[in-house]
């Protein structure tokens, strides 16, 4: 999904889970697409309080955010 939405300048498969996606080329607008795709795929909604750079900054950060949303939905 990150490969499809983030529009990185590098191969996402070459990045570690903690690699900075913004430094790898993800723009602010691309982060919108990534958010919407994640919401559709996992049937969650990111609340406004989570709409900040650090939440979408890395694969690890995104996974942690999804975990948090899953816990809230439970």
């Amino acid at each position, binding site marked *: 999904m990150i490969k499809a939405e983030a*529009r990185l300048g590098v191969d996402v498969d070459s990045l570690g889970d903690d690699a900075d996606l913004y430094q790898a080329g993800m*723009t*602010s*607008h*691309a982060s*919108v*697409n990534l*958010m*919407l795709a994640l*919401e*559709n795929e996992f049937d969650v909604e990111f*609340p*406004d*309080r*989570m*709409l*900040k*750079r*650090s*939440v979408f900054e890395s694969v690890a950060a995104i996974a942690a955010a999804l975990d948090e949303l899953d816990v809230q939905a439970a």
Partner: protein
Amino acid sequence: MTLRIGIDLVDVRDVEDSLARFGSDYLERVYTAREVASARGGTSASSLAAFFAAKEATLKAIATEREGIGWNKIEIGTVHGRRASLSLSDGAADAARSAGITSFEVSVARSRTHASAIVIATGAIDRNPAGQGGPR
């Protein structure tokens, strides 16, 4: 005195792609109803790109990493020439207030392929000196 600046550049094709793929979800999460109406009911990707650039520039000027802010909590008003009006609600208004920001100057530029915006935010008291706010 508080003085902050934000800038952003958006590729119109990215907005076209978002509209095609996410449709009303994209419009509702990012833009206000007035912005959508102003952008020919959400069909003008160029206008939406300009609005998004101005929103992101504003966020860069006011935001910290303490709390996120929804894009639709920043409304870009009518663009007069290269200047635009701006209004904040909810978390965006709170963030500006916390930073001591009381006024904004917004300028946008558009080409066939891109939109850009720069925002200068000012206030009387710097409640969050440089180094205590995070980039967005």
